[in-house]
């Protein structure tokens, strides 16, 4: 169950009940995104209200990464045994796969909120969040 309190842990209150959530947890602006054990993600207000689905398909999604602009998210799922990297609007709309190739690891939103960083072939790659030509970064790996 999800709890929310002050930054020092005080005044924490349980904000969800019923279905287990929190197996993955991140903030999207002032709303909370949380995953279930099945990899379904929901986004809700910090008091647990107005809970809506963030991932609309039946595949398990993992590790939702919120872009710094709070307008985009990046996550990955497993579809037919393959890892797929996705980007979407903060509410889960307009989901798309910027990386067409099969991955072996996850990805995160880049610091500019316009790119997705992911690992492939022993290097960190960057690709525009809406898809395009990947570029190898100089990040050590």
């Amino acid at each position, binding site marked *: *169950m*999800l709890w929310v309190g002050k*930054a020092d*842990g005080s005044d924490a209150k349980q904000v969800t009940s019923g279905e287990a959530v929190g197996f993955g947890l991140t*903030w999207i602006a002032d709303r909370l995104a949380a995953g279930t054990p099945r990899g379904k993600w929901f986004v809700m207000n*910090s008091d647990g209200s107005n809970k809506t689905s963030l991932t609309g398909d039946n595949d398990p999604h993992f590790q939702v990464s919120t872009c710094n602009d709070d307008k985009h998210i990046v996550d990955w799922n497993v579809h037919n045994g393959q890892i797929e990297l996705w980007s979407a609007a903060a509410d889960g709309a307009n989901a798309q796969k910027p990386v067409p190739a099969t991955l072996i690891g996850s990805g995160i939103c880049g610091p500019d909120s316009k790119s997705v960083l992911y690992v492939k072939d022993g290097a960190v790659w960057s690709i525009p969040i809406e898809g395009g030509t990947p570029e190898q970064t100089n990040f050590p790996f």
Partner: protein
Amino acid sequence: MWKQPLDSKGLVQITEFSSGEMFGFAWSKDGKQLAFARGVRTTDVVMMSNFRKTGSSLQPSEVLRTDLELCNPNCRFLSFGILHKDVQVTVVIEHTGVEQLSVLLHGAPPRRERNFPAPKVNVRSAPRNSTKVCQNSAG
């Protein structure tokens, strides 16, 4: 949960629960709120006998992990985890053959490595369609 400055001084406990587990946490961007997930893991034990292709109610998407964790000395009983109705379940299978078991494991090829040697016992005779699932709530 505990908080410790990067200089390793001043360890502070920030949550204090006497039960349950902490599954995750995240501070809000403005640093004013802390969200965390906590709870208690509950598991059921499911016993299935004479597992057959047509007798399973489990769907591939429910398989949480396919590594077989237990194998008793004669390798007749195996266990693994699944998600069943959003509850993590440990399944114990009294298996009757590698092929039948592999159907449950995402259609993966028969596994004979390490913890899953080929069955060493004969199939116990049992009526067809005798698969049964017994669930005991443990949490």
